[in-house]
């Protein structure tokens, strides 16, 4: 597997990836290391290429939300969201207010559970296993609410062209509100744990820096961009008034400037407060609106093209649809945020130590399970040096060391 002897023949290579049965997007990072420092990195993807764009052109329009939902398990509602936005852009229709609010509620609940998942794993990677346990404990309550609304903890199947498939009945609203209220002290706790802990400051500040210049050049998205000082958020910049409720609610978009792992963590924590705000405002609108008015009928997709995008937890999801007037699209282009963000590791990880590589690669939130399997191979004598567990251990030891120094 490792036979790249050409120019890097004296350096060791640490392959991270490519396969794990749990992963939703496989990637293979080849880290070239010199001593403890990462000097170059090769990124190979495509291990999990399923040809969804092609499959999608073989489904009719009403089936596609289910198909694209299966692109990603964690942000499973972002793809249908961007897809229906694209088709509704093509059609030029305006969906009922109630459907807009339900869409935004589902989108924000997803953001909450996705960020809590990331926070837990990030904690685990640097040796804060308590953060991991607590964060995933609170994630459960979000998943429970999603199950209550849609019947599923993941793959909610809520979206359709012209509206949503299920209503949120009035008697569920107090439960959702209670969950939101209970979550705020938990996020306060995480915020304190990150912002006030000198060890985390020492461990994550200045690690895996992506400068604003590089961020623009690689066109990174979502929290990765916002931590590097780029003030973008599709929800605010292009609320797509006809399809979502983001234009009707108030929320802030946190932006920080250092571009390191610390800022990426803080951004995600701050975003959770905003998600809760959005959910509560949408629920307030739902209370006033009559139940049941959740879709308009769409019978026919005329020839034309449409562009839709949506701010997924990891950044902008982009869908392009072209119709020839039949019941299937002739082209469906999909671009997920990690497609742009993962490429930026080319600059963010180089120059770091191996102990920082795990958290740096993970900081763009590339759907972690992907990178769960790794071995380090000594190129000269083909000996296995590190496993993924060793890497995490290295990372955790570094945290311990910093703890003692402080």
């Amino acid at each position: 597997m490792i036979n790249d002897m050409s120019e890097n023949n004296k350096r060791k290579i640490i392959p991270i990836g490519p396969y794990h049965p749990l992963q939703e997007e496989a990637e293979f990072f080849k880290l070239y290391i010199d001593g403890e420092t990462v000097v170059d990195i090769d990124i190979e993807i495509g291990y999990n290429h399923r040809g969804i764009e092609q499959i999608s052109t073989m489904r009719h329009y009403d089936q596609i939300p289910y198909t694209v939902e299966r692109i990603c398990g964690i942000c499973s509602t972002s793809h249908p969201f961007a897809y229906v936005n694209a088709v509704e852009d093509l059609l030029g229709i305006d969906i009922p207010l109630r459907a807009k609010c339900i869409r935004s509620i589902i989108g924000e609940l997803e953001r909450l559970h996705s960020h809590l998942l990331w926070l837990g794993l990030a904690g685990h990677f640097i040796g804060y296993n308590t953060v991991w346990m607590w964060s995933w404990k609170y994630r459960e309550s979000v998943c429970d609410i999603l199950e209550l609304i849609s019947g599923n903890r993941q793959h909610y199947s809520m979206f359709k062209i012209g509206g949503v498939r299920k209503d949120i009945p009035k008697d569920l609203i107090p439960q959702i509100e209670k969950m939101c209220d209970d979550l705020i002290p938990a996020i306060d706790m995480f915020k304190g744990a990150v912002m006030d802990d000198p060890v985390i400051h020492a461990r994550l500040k200045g690690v895996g820096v992506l400068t604003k210049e590089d961020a623009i050049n690689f066109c990174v998205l979502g929290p990765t961009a916002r931590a590097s000082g780029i003030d973008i958020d599709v929800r605010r910049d292009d609320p797509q008034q006809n399809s979502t409720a983001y234009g009707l609610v108030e929320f802030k978009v946190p932006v920080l400037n250092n571009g390191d792992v610390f800022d990426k963590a803080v951004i995600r924590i701050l975003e959770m407060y905003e998600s809760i705000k959005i959910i509560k405002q949408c629920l307030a609108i739902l209370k006033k609106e009559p139940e049941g008015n959740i879709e308009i009928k769409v019978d026919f997709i005329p020839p034309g093209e449409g562009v839709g995008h949506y701010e997924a937890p990891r950044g902008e999801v982009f869908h392009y649809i072209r119709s020839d007037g039949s019941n299937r699209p002739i082209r469906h282009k999909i671009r997920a945020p990690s497609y742009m963000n993962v490429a930026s590791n080319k600059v963010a990880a180089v120059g770091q130590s191996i102990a920082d590589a795990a958290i740096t690669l993970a900081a763009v939130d590339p759907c972690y399970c992907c990178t769960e399997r790794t071995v380090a191979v000594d190129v000269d004598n083909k000996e296995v040096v590190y496993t993924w567990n060793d890497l995490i251990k290295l990372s955790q030891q570094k945290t311990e060391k910093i703890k003692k120094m402080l």
Partner: protein
Amino acid sequence: MKEDIISQVKQKLGDKILNFFEKNKKRYYIEIDKKDIVECSKILFDDLGFRFQTASGVDCEQNFEILYHFSYDKTGQIVSLRVKLDKEKPEIESLTKVFKAAEWIEREIWELLGINFVGHPNLKHLLLSDDWPQGNYPLREK
């Protein structure tokens, strides 16, 4: 402000615009000649501060089309540059010298549609395996 950026685009691109289509206030499609793609991208990306979203290649009956989607995040408007390439020898200049973000998507279009990107530093398979049969392009219509 909202009118501003689009009129700036119109003015700066000038006679390079072959066809201008306003789908609605947020979505614009501009057809240009393929020889102008680098220059037009530079105008949008460097001068006007657009963000490159992605490119989508389409196999149409008469020709190949590539749409380069650019987003202006201050107003949320999306401008898609459309170029048409002939079927015989589909070829266009690479945008990698304008922004790094073009690198992966050009590799993807190259392997799925067989469109050659002149000047791409690393034109190899992205999604398909390295031993994928040459000349077999999955997204081409038969």
